[in-house]
């Protein structure tokens, strides 16, 4: 993913998550959540089920995060220099 797309998608999803945080924690407690386009696109009991649900979306989003509903999504990349 190119840096410009990453920055743009991160901003969209940060903003979306800020608006959805409480709803995600309430409606998806105990689940994993996939976030893309600034909204929840999938949720399931396990990480693998959540990823599998995202892979069914057409087109599969280039940018999406998967995280436990009771944790903050990791918007910031880690560095492997």
């Amino acid at each position, binding site marked *: 993913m190119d840096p410009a797309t990453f920055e743009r998608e991160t901003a969209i999803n940060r903003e979306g998550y800020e608006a959805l945080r409480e709803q995600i924690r309430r409606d998806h407690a105990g689940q994993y959540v*996939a976030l893309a386009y600034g909204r929840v696109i999938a949720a399931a009991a396990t*990480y693998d089920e959540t990823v599998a649900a995202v892979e069914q979306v057409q087109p599969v989003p280039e940018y999406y995060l998967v*995280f436990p509903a009771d944790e903050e999504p990791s918007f910031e990349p*880690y560095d492997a220099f």
Partner: protein
Amino acid sequence: MPQVCWQAAAGGRYWMDVALGNYDTRVMIDLGLIDPLRLVGLEVDPVLYHRIKQAGQFSRFNRRFRRDASGRLSWTESGLTAAQVICPTARQRVGPAVRVYVSCSAPGVPNRVGIVFFHRLSRCRVLWELDQQMWCIEYP
């Protein structure tokens, strides 16, 4: 305090022994593996990653983006597990057991341990003996 040490390999790389869940592995020390969110402390090859995952030794997962030295961004899966230093001579676990995320790297990339793991080693010290080319960890 007792300490464990590893001699630099002939190529100049430093390797150390770490237990990830129930799996003992040798990892290259990589101070360029940095997570500003202080979550990811190691990257391991897909074979080991999926072995740990299949054994049910990851308690949580995360889909993260990683950035390499060229600035390229790609996504990776990370799992949370217990990690502990292994004494290279006695082959026993020493020092504190810490919880840290382990990321799945690309095939063929050496298993690596980074900054976050060392920062989790409460009350420990890293001693880098430059003349002797030894990487040592003191533990309580």
